[in-house]
């Protein structure tokens, strides 16, 4: 059993998916199925052992924030009715938080390079947080965006050298996949809300930013990943949650796959990147 749990694919994929599926099934009637992403990420953190308090590294800070954000999401869902400004404001807050996350890396760069890298990751996290938050009332699109975003970041991170970022991002994707699968099995949508959308957007944004800052995820691959939530806005079939989920995931998957290709050295050489 322990050997199975030590397998990276189990740690970052299968076990988080199973935990997320259990949480989504148990809590969808309480409108809290969005906690699936947190359950998946928490499972990966437990199995990989990357959590530390107080956090020392950027990755540890990312995991701390990502595991705390669902609480904020639940509070937003239960106590607030978010206005149109909520997404951009939350995006800005978490975007600026990435400066704390990446401070150790940024302070060692030349001023111009630090500014460029800092501005880039702030924009990335702000955008992904706001873009995912905007999908909170559309559970199929939100689920598909988070699924393909998590898997896209995971594969891109793996190709650009970081196995641990790959595992954590894949686990977030697995959690979103479980959330989507519950809807497909029920044949109807379940609430995503801020609980799901904020958890997924912040976790994916921070993990992409961390892989970009601390490892070698190219900026153009990160930029492509930022388009995943937009891709899921393309038209979907009018009925059938199964079909909608598959089509929305295909939209996001195509963009996510493009980001993965951009992380592959052979493609980078061909494109002169």
């Amino acid at each position: 059993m322990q050997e199975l749990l030590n397998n990276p694919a189990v740690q970052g994929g299968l076990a988080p998916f199973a935990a997320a599926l259990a949480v989504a099934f148990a809590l969808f009637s309480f409108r809290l199925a969005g906690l699936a992403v947190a359950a998946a990420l928490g499972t990966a953190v437990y199995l990989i052992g990357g959590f530390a308090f107080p956090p020392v590294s950027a990755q540890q800070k990312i995991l701390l924030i990502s595991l705390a954000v669902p609480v904020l999401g639940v509070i937003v869902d239960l106590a607030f009715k978010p206005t149109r400004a909520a997404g951009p404001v939350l995006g800005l807050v978490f975007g600026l938080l990435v400066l704390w996350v990446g401070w150790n890396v940024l302070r060692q760069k030349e001023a111009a390079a630090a500014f460029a890298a800092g501005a880039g990751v702030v924009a990335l996290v702000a955008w992904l947080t706001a873009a995912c938050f905007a999908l909170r009332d559309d559970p199929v699109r939100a689920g598909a965006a988070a699924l393909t975003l998590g898997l896209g970041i995971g594969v891109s991170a793996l190709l650009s050298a970081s196995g641990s970022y790959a595992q954590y991002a894949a686990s977030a994707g697995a959690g979103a996949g479980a959330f989507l699968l519950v809807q497909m099995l029920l044949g109807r949508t379940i609430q995503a809300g801020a609980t799901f959308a904020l958890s997924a957007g912040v976790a994916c944004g921070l993990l992409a930013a961390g892989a970009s800052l601390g490892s070698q995820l190219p900026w153009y691959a990160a930029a492509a990943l930022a388009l995943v939530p937009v891709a899921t806005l393309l038209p979907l079939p009018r009925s059938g949650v199964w079909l909608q989920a598959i089509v929305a995931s295909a939209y996001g998957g195509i963009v996510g796959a493009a980001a993965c290709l951009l992380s592959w050295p052979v493609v980078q050489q061909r494109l002169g990147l």
Partner: protein
Amino acid sequence: MKKFALGAIALALPLAAAAAPESYTIDPNHTYAYFEVEHLGVSLQRGRFERTSGKFTLDHAAKSGSVELSVETASVSSGDNVKGNRPRTLDDHLKTADFFNVAEFPRMSFKSTGVKFAGDNPSEIAGQLTLLGVTKPFTLKVDRWVCKDNPMSKKPMCGGNASASLKRTEFGMKYGVPAIGDEVRLWVSIEGYRD
């Protein structure tokens, strides 16, 4: 009486000078930190860091000393550094957040807190190792130590070899355990010239 005091001081001065701690600067071309870790329970894989700097002091009379070493983690070298069409080399991977996280923690350092002597030579150096932003007590066992003049330049030098082991997970390097072993064996080859 005054003459006697002056004479005593004059006699004591060279002794005092001889007993003073001698300061040495590390020769980066002959000072390297090596490591060894188990891979998939099969082989022991080795690597080293190409750039190390630092200083040490020795006081043979008082049998005391100190060591400060700083290792550039980005200089890690496993021998696998030609990428070709692969997404990454082993060196690339060792530099990421999975292992030495060089973008965030470009140095690991060792600062001694006490040096034990066996006879005229240091035998054990206790201190604090800082790796990945985590500082833990760490003891180097001195396996060999020689002080002499460089045969060519005639400059006074000291050097030797020391070894230790650590559990990488205690420093937050948890990726791949247990497939990639937790216990890391370390060796340091060190040479320094007197300042």
